[in-house]
């Protein structure tokens, strides 16, 4: 079971590279934010998976914090792009 | 005052879920419960201006929550269909995008938010903008069939469900 979780995590990390490529290429800034958002989601998924892989309950708290707070950063960038603030 | 209390109760429930399995009073230890009550009162006082800003307590009705759980079933089915649809489009690259406008006719903030998020998560649609006064949604649709679509086409009958849940 454990190695399955690890392999899934490796896959998620490989998918993160796509997000990074989008940040590099992204012609406009919103494209880059989309890339960041994707990486965020994948990191949260990876954290949950790795928490199960290590059999450590308390690690999942990190994923919760991340899920709640990565939103804040995205919102700030979005607000800047809107021209408000 | 009332909003603070309701917020505190909801915060307390969340706290209990977070600390499950710490003791033997059901699932919780006594210290945990005391701390939870104190903390949720504080959270209620500081969060009272947001969660029930309009003194709108209709979500406290348990019937609406049962509806909400029932709503999850068609929602998940639609979501799965959406993902298969998007998968198809990712692989073939066949898209026909555009931004259309719908008027779901929902009154409450929660209702329109729920609808917008549901739309974002389902068939090839993404809520881009909202008209603050009339609650009209502008939706980016990955496969535009009509330029003036009716609501059913875009949102799979979600508004009916949401009207029952949130209004």
């Amino acid at each position, binding site marked *: 079971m454990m190695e399955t979780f690890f392999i899934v995590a490796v896959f998620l990390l490989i998918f993160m590279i796509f997000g990074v490529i989008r940040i590099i290429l992204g012609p406009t800034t919103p494209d880059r934010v989309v890339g960041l958002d994707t990486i965020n989601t994948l990191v949260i998924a990876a954290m949950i998976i790795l928490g199960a892989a*290590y*059999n*450590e*309950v*308390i*690690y999942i708290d990190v994923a919760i914090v991340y899920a709640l707070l990565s939103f804040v950063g995205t919102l700030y960038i979005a607000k800047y792009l809107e021209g408000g603030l | 005052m009332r909003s603070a209390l309701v917020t505190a109760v909801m915060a307390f429930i969340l706290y209990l879920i977070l600390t499950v399995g710490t003791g033997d009073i059901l699932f919780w230890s006594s210290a945990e419960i005391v701390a939870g009550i104190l903390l949720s009162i504080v959270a209620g006082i500081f969060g009272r201006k947001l969660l029930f800003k309009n003194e709108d307590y209709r979500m406290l009705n348990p019937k609406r929550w049962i509806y909400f759980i029932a709503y999850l079933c068609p929602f998940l089915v639609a979501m799965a269909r959406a993902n298969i649809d998007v998968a198809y489009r990712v692989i073939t690259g066949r898209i026909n995008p555009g931004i259309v406008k719908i008027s779901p006719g929902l009154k409450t903030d929660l209702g329109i938010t729920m609808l917008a998020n549901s739309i974002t998560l389902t068939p090839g649609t993404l809520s881009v903008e909202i008209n603050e006064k009339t609650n009209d949604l502008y939706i980016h649709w990955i496969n535009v069939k009509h330029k003036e679509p009716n609501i059913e086409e875009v949102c799979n009958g979600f508004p009916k469900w949401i009207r029952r849940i949130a209004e």
Partner: protein
Amino acid sequence: MIDNLPFIACAILVILGLYTLTFKRNLIKIVIGLNLVESGVNLFLITLGYKSNAVAPIYTMAAKEEMVLPTPQALTLTSIVIGLATTALILSFTILIYKHYKTIDASKVRRLRE
């Protein structure tokens, strides 16, 4: 060689930060460079304390007995908060500089010289 890859990554982060500090003229870029140096140092500290096949030094529901070294984690915690404090202060100064000079180019922000 591959064993020490995390250490090498820390060194690369520090060097990248130094490069930014020396060659980039934008003040906010300079702050970004400082942040990179700080990230490198933090990663270095955490990497120092890692032991393979060990768990975090928390006894609550740990799965194994072996634990990684806890001191670097405490130090890094301190270091992260210090980094945030410096970043906040330095960015405030940048805003103020822009208000007075109408530019944040380091080669133009130099009324003080000689």
